[in-house]
């Protein structure tokens, strides 16, 4: 067993374990932390595939930003575990159907027919001067420029929609205007009064 395969199996075992813990562990904070671990080991696997840009971006975006916000929300919730289990039997058929559907879909796409060793050739190894980032950029902005632009416009629409849905003007709230605060002068705040000194009584 060469070193690369050894690294692959180490990462794979950790990834499967972490992904399993995400759905089996009871504490939501622990589940979120296991998801972080899953992302991180997944990035390690991508690194083995010479996709270093994607691997680093996975850590940067999902681990560094998305999961921080996730944890932020999950930690704020004070979830009591026992009421969550009450409707378990009632929702079981529906949940089972959804799980079956997802499994069938994934089987059709990711099945042995499409992803077996025969269907996908072993990717060629590149030399040390190969730049994954440069290749990705040149493909993204030439061959796939329209899908790329459309995807970014959809994301922009989603951002604007999210802001528009959640933003509401509450009347009566008081907030500071930094422009006014910066522009303030001494004369606005302090009034200097000139007066004669007075005699001491007694």
């Amino acid at each position, binding site marked *: 067993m060469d070193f690369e395969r050894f690294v692959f199996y180490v990462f794979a075992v950790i990834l499967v374990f972490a992904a399993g813990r995400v759905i089996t562990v009871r504490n939501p*904070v622990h589940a979120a*932390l296991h998801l*972080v671990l899953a992302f*991180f080991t997944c990035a390690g696997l991508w690194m083995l595939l010479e996709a*270093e*840009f994607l691997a*680093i*971006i996975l*850590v*940067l975006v999902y*681990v*560094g*930003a998305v999961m*921080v*916000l996730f*944890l*932020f929300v999950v*930690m*704020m919730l004070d979830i009591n575990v026992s009421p969550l289990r009450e409707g378990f039997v009632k929702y079981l058929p529906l949940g089972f159907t959804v799980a079956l559907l997802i499994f069938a879909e994934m089987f059709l796409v990711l099945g042995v027919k499409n992803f077996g060793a025969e269907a996908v050739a072993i990717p060629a190894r590149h030399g040390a001067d190969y*730049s*994954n*980032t440069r290749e990705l950029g040149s493909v993204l902005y030439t061959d796939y420029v329209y899908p790329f632009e459309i995807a970014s416009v959809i994301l922009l629409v989603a951002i604007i929609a999210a802001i528009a849905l959640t933003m509401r003007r509450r009347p009566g709230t008081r907030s500071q205007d*930094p422009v006014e605060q910066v522009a303030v002068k001494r004369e606005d705040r302090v009034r200097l009064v000139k007066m004669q000194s007075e005699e001491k009584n007694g």
Partner: protein
Amino acid sequence: MAEFWEIIREPFFITLKIVAILVPLLLAVAYLTFAERKIIGYMQVRIGPNRVGPRGWLQPIADALKLLMKEIVVPTSSNRYLFLIAPMISIAPALAAWAAIPFTDTLVLANIDASLIYILALTSVGVYGVIIAGWASNSKYAFLGAMRSAAQIVSYEIAMGFALVGVLIAGGSLNLVEIVKAQQGSLVHWFWLPLFPLFLVYFISGLAETNRAPFDVAEGESEIVAGFHVEYSGMAFAVFFLAEYANMILIATLAALMFLGGWLSPFEGTWFEAWFAWVPGIFWLLAKTSLFLFCFLWFRATFPRYRYDQIMRLGWKVFIPITIVWIVVAGGLVLGEVGPWFN
């Protein structure tokens, strides 16, 4: 035996190189704390630590020994496992990021192609140490500190990332060695001039990312005692401390590499160039890094702590618009081949 040496040789030399980076780094961390106390002391017209060793030079050693001897108290209703793992999560990325830092054009442990985003990604992982510490302590103050820190780091990381986008447009590469090489010429060829707003935004975001004053609301002692590490003692606390200072040195080094020409001599292209040709490049890098580190300490002695809503406003409403505008300007400068930087 000879075969065994063949297998072990490369890992052995890599380990040696890692030690050669980390030992000076940890020494630098120790003496940065000493420098901080001395410099802030002089700024406040007092002497600072001067009892241990000649002129206080052994003070950091004494501090480290004291922290090593202290008991690590684990609060009874805390999450023991996460409580102990949090300091490790905090220090590991702070040290791992140094793997991709070039000290001169050849002196670099791992000259990887995407070193800039590798470092950005690793520094963003460091926030987990703070969040987990705050949550696992099962203490209100620690939790408040963790929440503040998480919100602050996520906000400022966007501004910082955009500032780095400007640098990579100007440098034409994600590799730090290439970015420094693109700044060759003279003092005005360095990227601080064409990217001046990004330079300021990067450095201030770096202050906020490392939770340093005036952005140290995560451990604001007047409001929430000591923030996320309120329950930590002994070596576990020292590890958080180490991580914070290692991150400070990292941010300062990155600022020197990206905006002040890294190991390039400031006298390049002037009459003095020949006089200073004998100075090794790493000296200039360390000098520039020290300049930024001095600024870190200077700001701590100068500015009062920001209020929390003001921090958020600065990050989202001031820095992000500035960086977006300047990315467009930088793109224009590169496309128009504006001299002396991009022709």
